[in-house]
């Protein structure tokens, strides 16, 4: 799995080396979750569910939520 060498396809000029899963996993876990939290705040906070009470977040991103295709209200 952890190959850093281009796959031996001799006929093609450039096949990029694959990045090992072990190198990707920590970034994927931490930043993947962080990015999903950001998406949640843009897309759903104070709509279907709320972490913070009130409607400030919802009202602030109101237009973006509509135009990005999220159900808004």
């Amino acid at each position, binding site marked *: 799995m952890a190959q*850093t*060498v*281009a*796959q031996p*396809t001799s006929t*093609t*000029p*450039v*096949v*990029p*080396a*694959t*990045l*090992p*899963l072990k*190198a*990707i996993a*920590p*970034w*994927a876990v931490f*930043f*993947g979750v*962080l*990015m*999903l939290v*950001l*998406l949640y*705040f*843009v*897309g*759903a906070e104070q*709509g*279907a*569910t709320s972490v913070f009470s009130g*409607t*400030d977040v919802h*009202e*602030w*991103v*109101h*237009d*973006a*939520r*509509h*135009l*990005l*295709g*999220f*159900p*808004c*209200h």
Partner: protein
Amino acid sequence: MNSATVRNLLVRGMLAGLGAGVLALVVAYVLGEPSVNSAIGFEEAHSHEHEMEVVSRTLQSTAGLATGVLVYGVAFGGIAALAFCFALGRVGRFGPRATALLLSGTALLAVYVVPFLKYPANPPSVGAPDTIGKRTTLYFLMMVLSVLLAVAATQLGKRLALGLGTWWATVVAVAAFVVVIGLAYQFLPVVNEVPKDFPAALLWRFRLSALAVQAVLWGGFGLLFGELAERQLHPAPARASSGHTVPASN
């Protein structure tokens, strides 16, 4: 070294997402906002209660819109960069630029277009407030389902390629994706909450502009990130020989 490569690609992905977000923001403001304002005009003409404004329309349509679109761009840019790290060299004989564009095209379809065809974007005044929970659940469910199925179809295609060759493996994998998505479309509940007299042309214009926002976002991301990734991975004339090391150019 590889961990540093992933980190650099992630940073570039978020920057490319920010750049693509700026382009998408222009489209959202120029094409989308007029429809949003018309829809709000319809809402105000047809409802008797007047809601108190928490955030002014001016702020919502400028700073608020920018916040939402840019955060969305950065977040999906980061996720797409991580997916790119996985896809690079694993989906076929594609270099960084082609992989990035292929990935962002697939993401446009899986993340947006497929859920959109079942649960399209709605302007203000379309949608009953008391069904927001159900609609949000269905929308995110459709999005997650579509993304997972796209990943599964890619894996299926890779396996089949050994026996069927790339062409037919791709055809079969795409067909499998279409069939399963078709079944989901068929069995998931229909949402139709368009008010009776809501102008059809306005709804159409709003939805087209929402689609344009995403097309520009993902198209821009694919091109921008592809270029950044290409420069990071092949700084000199492109060579991927054994012992290919990636300089930490950041």
